[in-house]
């Protein structure tokens, strides 16, 4: 019984009135949708892709928050550094009567007036002052220095008559400053490169996972897509790094640490320059690596080697910033040059031509890696499902 009902139902559903009506209208006329817009060239398409990357990222909360934290962090470390340095430098010294003149006009000391030697002695004993200078008639310099358990060399220094000293080698950089600056370059590089690198990786996988890549590739070439991605994120990374550099410079000027600025200014400019090229290199690697997988869950496995490469310069510079050989090698190896060379410049260990050579090496490496990355990216972008091995991607489809 049921089959009969089906038959009757089908019978009435068969003819297509709409089709008949439609196919009567002009078949065979050429599709006329107005003028064809001019095809965007590779560059124009890349710019459009870059624009989307930038506007998308700039609007995300995580980007705004992390940038703010970075900038505030840099500013805070400079301000705190200056406050700490300020407290260190002034040694409190108790002075009695005419002895005050001996210290007058000397930088780095804060004179605390004491009524007599007994009070000065008490101040030293209480730890209120590091030393006391009291008049002493028998002494050739006219004063005597009181201190707790250690000769206060700085105080003695200014009170003594010292012979002229000629240093045959320039003094080493202050250990702390040296460490801080190296650490700073390393950290900024790591944060920016890893941050924007993962952004590229995420975007690549999102496009692959959501398959929008099929629509995109039906429209623009894979090269434009990759170029736009690298360009957009490089701009962001460059902007962020430049902002950090600007904040650092402003911070140093405002807190009156101009002398440090003089030392760090040129290296910072070099750093920004090296970073820009170095980031392009890393960006190509991040994009190529991410194009090998199709799901967000698999990103970790392909990202690990690239992340290690990004972290290496940071650890090298933190552990070996007092080892000139390691620094020299670092400053020429393309992956670590963006950190290594500015640190060497800051330490005054590099000749004027060295950054130029290192930068040229870095540019060559970046071009090579981008070319290779583009190949991998082009070939694995449409392969979905499992993970594409690097060998497969390079061998071609």
């Amino acid at each position, binding site marked *: 019984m049921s089959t009969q009902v089906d038959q009757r139902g089908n019978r009435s559903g068969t003819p297509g009135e709409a089709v008949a009506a439609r196919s009567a209208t002009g078949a065979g006329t050429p599709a006329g949708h107005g003028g064809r817009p001019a095809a965007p060239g590779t560059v124009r398409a890349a710019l459009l892709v870059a624009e989307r990357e930038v506007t998308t990222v700039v609007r995300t909360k995580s980007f705004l928050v992390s940038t703010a934290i970075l900038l505030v962090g840099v500013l805070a470390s400079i301000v705190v550094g200056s406050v700490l340095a300020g407290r260190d430098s002034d040694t409190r010294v108790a002075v009695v009567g005419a002895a005050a003149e001996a210290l007058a006009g000397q930088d780095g000391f804060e004179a605390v007036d004491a009524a007599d030697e007994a009070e000065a002695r008490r101040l030293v004993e209480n730890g209120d002052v590091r030393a006391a200078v009291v008049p002493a008639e028998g002494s050739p310099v006219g004063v005597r220095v009181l201190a707790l358990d250690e000769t206060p060399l700085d105080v003695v220094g200014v009170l003594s008559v010292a012979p002229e000293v000629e240093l045959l080698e320039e003094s080493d950089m202050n250990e702390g400053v040296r460490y801080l600056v190296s650490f700073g370059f390393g950290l900024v590089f790591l944060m920016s490169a890893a941050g924007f690198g993962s952004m590229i990786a995420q975007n690549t996988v999102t496009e692959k996972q*959501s398959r929008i890549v099929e629509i995109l590739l039906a429209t623009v070439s894979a090269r434009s897509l990759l170029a736009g991605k690298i360009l957009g994120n490089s701009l962001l990374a460059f902007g962020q790094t430049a902002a950090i550099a600007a904040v650092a410079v402003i911070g140093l000027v405002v807190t009156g640490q101009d002398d440090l600025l003089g030392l760090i200014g040129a290296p910072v400019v070099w750093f920004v320059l090296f970073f820009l090229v170095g980031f392009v290199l890393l960006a190509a690697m991040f994009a190529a690596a991410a194009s090998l997988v199709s799901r967000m869950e698999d990103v970790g496995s392909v990202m690990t080697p690239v992340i290690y490469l990004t972290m290496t310069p940071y650890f090298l510079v933190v552990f070996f910033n007092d080892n000139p050989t390691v620094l020299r090698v670092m400053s020429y190896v393309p992956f670590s040059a963006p950190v290594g060379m500015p640190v060497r410049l800051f330490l005054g260990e590099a000749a004027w031509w060295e950054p130029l050579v290192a930068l040229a090496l870095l540019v060559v490496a970046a071009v090579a890696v981008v070319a290779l990355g583009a190949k991998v990216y082009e070939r694995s972008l449409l392969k979905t499902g499992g993970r594409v091995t690097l060998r497969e991607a390079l061998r071609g489809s």
Partner: protein
Amino acid sequence: MLQVHHVNRSFGDRLVLDDVTFDVRRGRLTGFVGGNGAGKTTTMRIVLGVLAADSGHVTLDGTDLDAAERRFFGYMPEERGLYPKMRVLEQITYLARLHGVDRGAATRRATALLERLGLGERMNDRLDDLSLGNQQRAQIAAALVHEPEVLVLDEPFSGLDPMAVDVVVGVLSEYAAQGAPVIFSSHQLDLVERLCDDLVVIAQGRIRAAGGREDLRAAYGHARWEIDTAGDVGWLRSAPGVRVQHFDGGWAVFEADDDAAAQQVLRRALEQAPVASFGPVRSTLAEIFREVVKDEDTTEAAR
């Protein structure tokens, strides 16, 4: 006319497309039907140049397709793809701009298209805030926003409610009426049957049948008749040259060897009782599809 010529494609050792050849004529809607894994999506990807063919080529009006020509194609991939976190209007505008439309015109077009597809209220929402049906509409907008000259749509109707189907059908018909070749795949055979002028049937990577809908019907449908009378037609079972398929008192559907045998049945029925209706039964696409695919499978087995 969009033509696919002798396209072959393998994935590893598996031959996915085997000498695939068919035409998509201008001004007509062409339905592309086949079972799961038959090769529809692979074929469409090759037409769009998203995937390369191992051999064979695709032409439009006799010229080989290149990337420049394909930019005027509208493509809807099988697995839907748009940026999940991006606002609908922004991404449709972005896609138009990638096609070379300037910003102002791209925004206007995207807005008009989204309104037409019923997404006017939601176009400033992020894609993943939309229901699946609405995401599907956005996907269709993505395929159409650059006013393509050829449409290649993989399952454009899946997940759409009947109203949305009507809207999309209206848009596709408009494109076809303007002379664009339009091909779409679908599992909904009744829908394809209702809409398409031409059909391409693919199974196991080979084109099993291609041509006008009525031609296919004539070629593959068995001659069947339906009769409805006031009397009892039980005698049909023993009538010469006739095989009864369905029977219920005065109503029956039967196959006849030829027209003469069918006319003989009508005459005999009229002698016995008034006939309310008599006529040929048109095969449905589903039936033709099964027939085409089964035919080939049996020849395959016989080889």
